[in-house]
């Protein structure tokens, strides 16, 4: 299974294997990653699962669609060039080794 690392605002790093087909938001919620609240449960309604993707890997994950793009403009922590909502990122084998920064607010 692809290995993913979350880097929390506190500096804590969490590395875990995530099954292909799950979203990174679901995985983070299960792991109790600080800063991933996912209030709407992945319905693209709340923008509380914001992550910043390692810039070297961002392009390979595709681009946000229009709704996600609009939501990202409004995230509390401010948008970074490789900001994503992790409920929209469904894990594929290409995600292996991905590092995500979880912005603190």
């Amino acid at each position, binding site marked *: 299974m692809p290995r993913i690392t979350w880097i929390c605002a506190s500096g804590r790093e969490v590395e875990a294997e995530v099954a292909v087909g799950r979203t990174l938001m679901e995985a983070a919620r299960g792991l109790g990653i600080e800063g991933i609240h996912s209030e709407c449960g992945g319905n693209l309604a709340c923008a509380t699962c914001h992550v910043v993707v390692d810039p070297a890997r961002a392009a390979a994950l595709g681009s946000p669609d229009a709704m996600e793009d*609009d939501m990202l403009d409004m995230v509390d922590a401010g948008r970074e060039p490789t900001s994503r909502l992790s409920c929209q990122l469904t894990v594929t084998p290409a995600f292996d080794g991905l590092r995500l920064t979880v912005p603190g607010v």
Partner: protein
Amino acid sequence: MVADIVILGAGQAAVSAIETLRKAGSTAAITLIGDETALPYQRPPLSKAMLKGEVEAATLSLRPQAWYEGVTLRLGVRAERIDRAAACVQLSDGTAVRFDRLLLCTGSQARRLPSGIGGTLAGVLSLRGLGDAVALRGALAGARRLAVIGGGYVGLEVAAVARGLGLEVTLVEAGARILNRVACAETAALLRARHRAEGVRIIEGCGVSRILGETRAQGVELDDGTVVPADLVLVGIGAVAGDALAAAAGLATRNGILVDGFCATEDPRIFAAGDCATFPLGGVPGRLESVQNAIDQAACAAQNMLGASVAYAPVPWFWSDQYDLKLQIAGIGTGADRIVTCAGKRAGAVSHWYYAGDRLCAVDAVSDPAMHMLARRFLAAGSAPAPDAVAEGWQAVMAFSKAPA
């Protein structure tokens, strides 16, 4: 010292409370009691993705089993009674659980039609829990004509899904219009138009006199005598607060368990949060049925159970997905005297801003998440663009948000 915390009701609020208790470093023993056997799960998809068959029950869990380590899970048992004198909750399996602090997050139940007018016939369903969703999904697969009673979120979402599945759908709303309690007339008009364009027949301002059929629903008879033929009826006429146990224990209830601004009942050991709680909302006792409220109020209650004094002052928000429309509502529109329409950046994006004088009360955003997010920020800060600016469109709202305060 709070040694034993009991959470009654295993839903979104319970998960939020556990998370908050842990974050606060509480060492109290936590027991979670719920009458369903499933781990706490997300409800919003029950009327959307779950009905469409896009997700399965197992994926709806809010947290995996392992997350509950250290929490005593008592799932699949019913609480029979709250014994305040003995500080314990008596369960349907004959056991009792003692508490120092008790959090009631007993949710709400679907309001039903009386059996005298056909409310309990086969083929008459409601939608609240996972079991309801599984039953409705199965029934939709075998039905041709659906009658939806009630034009709130649940009714409209189910109507949208059913149309997508190819059913003939009629929706009947007894009130003057759909979304009467929860969105402004402009938003309702937009959704009505979309549902009609998708082929849903919408009848407003007309009540249901009875559901026809001997043992199985065959149609719905309206107050004006019209008969809507149907082989499946979905009743979506609101929810009733789960306040019976609290009331039986002598706690004050008023369309919900009455709590103060700190989520406490009149018994300082007992708190309530989520759908079941009636709390001071904008100066009057109110109740919110939403994910936001379940999460935030339970987090507030959890802190206060540990001795903090955190006041609950939410910016309520809700969402609903129908077809490809995303409706997001922030704030409470009660008391507004005008609605200002704001054109959005993208085709189909529009928001309706509710003002009482110059004070912003609420915003309905349709497929305009950016305006929704900004509205929440404005409502939280108590500072919002003037109605004239909003009327100019999204750029003016954006400019206000970026202007130095």
